[in-house]
């Protein structure tokens, strides 16, 4: 009787598919064992079914980087997955077919129940989806099939299949066997497969060596703000956090962006700079640094803001004056809607219905709809190219904590841009920020800049 691989060997082989620098989501079941097959120093974030983001593997604890884990609520987990932040998903499947459709393992366990768990979104939204599964059921019924024996949880989404006897790829309706388990021939695999499969030209025996460990995790710390913003191009869409007052804004990064000089920017921010004219808490004779420095430097083409004006007409903001001259465009968005649009951008929600603005000018030209007797207006998500945020501390993996009301838009903005740059007072080692303390996990932070000790947020 040919021996099939056990779960330990299967997860060890599946772990080889992980590349350093990735966010890897594991479905419930045998896929959860993959973390134990990756060394703890490996540069990878695992998202577990119960909602823990854990850095590195849990195998081989000799490595120096400690096991850092961040608990996520189920909503935050959904946002990570729907928002396209998962590079690779490993899902235990009941069956897979030649089209790359699959059903979650529960379809095989309980006939007729077809419970999806988190498999549907993992399969639909992750960059690459790997099915981890037994090649047949205990009674010999094949699980690799031409058609679908039960409702599918994903369509045309499986690209790699790791079973207890083989490793296969699925592409354009064709299954190709790359590897067979030790002692198995291609023909023996064919005999227990319910679909047409072809051998790869260089078909080999499966090996279970661990993924290659990267010597150091990615370097996220930048020496200066100017270096961190260096590649922001003209025309970029930039999230800038802040509420209204002098605190909680990434002043140093804003100065760096001004010095960098990128033009035609669209800034997404609660205000378009009002502290500079209102002077909350500004020492006498000084001027607060805010978005105005970018407007004054003629770098801003458009602002998407909730409060783009000064509270007093006698002290107009730089943005207001530019708007009156016709030099800048403006999209006014209620603060809550702005927050929801940014959150939606990071969470994979392209549009949502909000009651805010119904019956006002803000709903002009937008679809309205009655749901359960209440009227709503349709708003679309906002996503930026770059994001400048302010936090209290970051560890070198990019996990971040904020301070008090300086939190404001930071957490949602961090998720909703291609490149997020954080300005902090202090950078610490991984493990120094407690799991329950971390508000923004490192998967959302690309670059970390230490605010210079002698930097003043006032001109």
């Amino acid at each position, binding site marked *: 009787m040919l021996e099939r691989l056990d779960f330990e060997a299967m997860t060890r082989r599946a772990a080889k598919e992980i590349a350093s620098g990735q966010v890897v989501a594991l479905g*419930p079941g045998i896929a959860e064992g993959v973390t134990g097959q990756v060394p703890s120093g490996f540069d990878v974030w695992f998202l*577990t*079914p*119960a*909602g*823990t983001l854990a850095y590195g593997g849990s195998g081989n604890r000799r490595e120096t980087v400690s096991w850092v*884990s961040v*608990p*996520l*609520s*189920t*909503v935050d*987990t*959904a946002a990570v*997955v*729907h928002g396209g932040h998962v590079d690779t998903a490993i899902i235990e499947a009941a069956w897979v077919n030649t089209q790359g459709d699959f059903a979650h393992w*529960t379809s095989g*366990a*309980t006939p007729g*129940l*077809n*419970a*999806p*768990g*988190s*498999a*549907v*979104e993992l399969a*639909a*939204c992750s960059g690459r989806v790997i099915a981890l599964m037994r090649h047949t059921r205990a009674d010999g019924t094949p699980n690799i099939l031409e058609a679908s024996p039960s*409702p*599918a*949880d*994903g*369509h045309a989404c499986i690209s790699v299949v790791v079973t207890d006897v083989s490793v296969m790829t699925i592409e354009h309706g064709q299954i190709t066997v790359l590897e067979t388990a030790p002692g198995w021939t291609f023909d023996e695999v064919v005999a227990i497969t319910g679909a047409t499969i072809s051998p790869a030209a260089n078909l080999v025996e499966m090996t279970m060596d661990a993924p290659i460990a990267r010597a150091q995790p990615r370097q996220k710390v930048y020496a200066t703000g100017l270096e961190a913003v260096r590649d922001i191009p003209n025309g970029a869409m930039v999230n800038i956090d802040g509420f209204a007052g002098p605190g909680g804004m990434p002043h140093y990064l804003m100065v760096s962006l001004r010095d960098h000089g990128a033009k035609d920017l669209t800034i997404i921010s609660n205000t378009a700079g009002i502290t500079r004219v209102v002077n909350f808490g500004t020492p006498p004779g000084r001027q607060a640094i805010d978005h105005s420095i970018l407007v004054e430097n003629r770098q801003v083409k458009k602002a998407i803001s909730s409060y783009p004006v000064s509270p007093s007409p006698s002290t107009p903001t730089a943005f207001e004056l530019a708007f009156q001259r016709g030099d800048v465009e403006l999209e006014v968005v209620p603060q809550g809607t702005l927050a*929801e649009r940014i959150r*939606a951008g990071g*969470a*994979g*929600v*392209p*549009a*949502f*219905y*909000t*009651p805010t603005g119904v019956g006002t000018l803000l709903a002009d030209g937008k679809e309205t*709809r009655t*749901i*359960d007797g*209440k009227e*709503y207006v349709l708003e*679309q998500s906002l996503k930026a190219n770059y994001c400048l945020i302010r936090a209290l501390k970051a560890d070198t993996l990019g996990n971040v*904590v*904020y*301070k*008090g009301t300086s939190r404001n838009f930071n957490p949602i903005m961090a998720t909703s841009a291609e490149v997020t740059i954080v300005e902090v007072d202090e950078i610490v080692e991984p493990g120094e920020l407690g*799991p*329950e*303390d971390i508000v923004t996990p490192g998967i959302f932070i690309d670059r970390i800049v230490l605010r210079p000790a002698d930097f003043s947020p006032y001109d």
Partner: protein
Amino acid sequence: MSQNAGASQGSKGPTKVFPSPEAALDGLADGHVVLVGGFDGLGSPEALLKALSARGVGNLTCICQGAWAPRPQGGDSGLVQLAASGLLSKLMAPLPFQTVDSSERVPIEERWRSGLLEIETVPQGILAERLRAGGSGLGGIFLPTGVGGRFQDGREVRQFNGQDHIFHPAIHADFALIRAAAADVVGNLVFDGAHRNWNPVMAMAATVSIAEVDEIRKLGGLDPELVISPGIFVNRVVQTL
């Protein structure tokens, strides 16, 4: 029914603390939609579930991750008992129950197959976003998952950014039974690791939310930076022994 009826009124100000799980369930009635926190037994409000099973209300709809035995202890969890009892008419969950031994049906499966219990399966991410929409006052959201599959189920499909998305209405329930590590007397909550899961969103998405906790602190006893569920979302708090 006052949402806070039965809370003890301390001399030092408002409190949401209830003296027992039974007292905390006041007002939970026949036909109610009840959210229950927990994931695979982690962070599950076991004392509230036990009290609910003894309450004698029926025809309930329960929305939860699923009625599974808690790992690693095994055995029947409060949700397993609740689903096996006659109290539920409907269970909505991403993973409703687990078939442990294919030769033997668990009581939930028996009730489901005999038509006594309706089960609606739903992808975990969709359920999370629908509850979040309900708790956040949104009417509904579009999501990129399940297009062309069985979860599309007659729902509206629309294109955004060249890709099909499905509309899902918000969910708002009557009661939420959640579990947290600690609360203060006005309902601010902190959680413990993977026990967080569904609890924060469920606190938001119900008319009355009840938190079962290990520890109750006085006002100011929780670090503000660590509070995950602000007390405005929590109506009642009960400490379990």
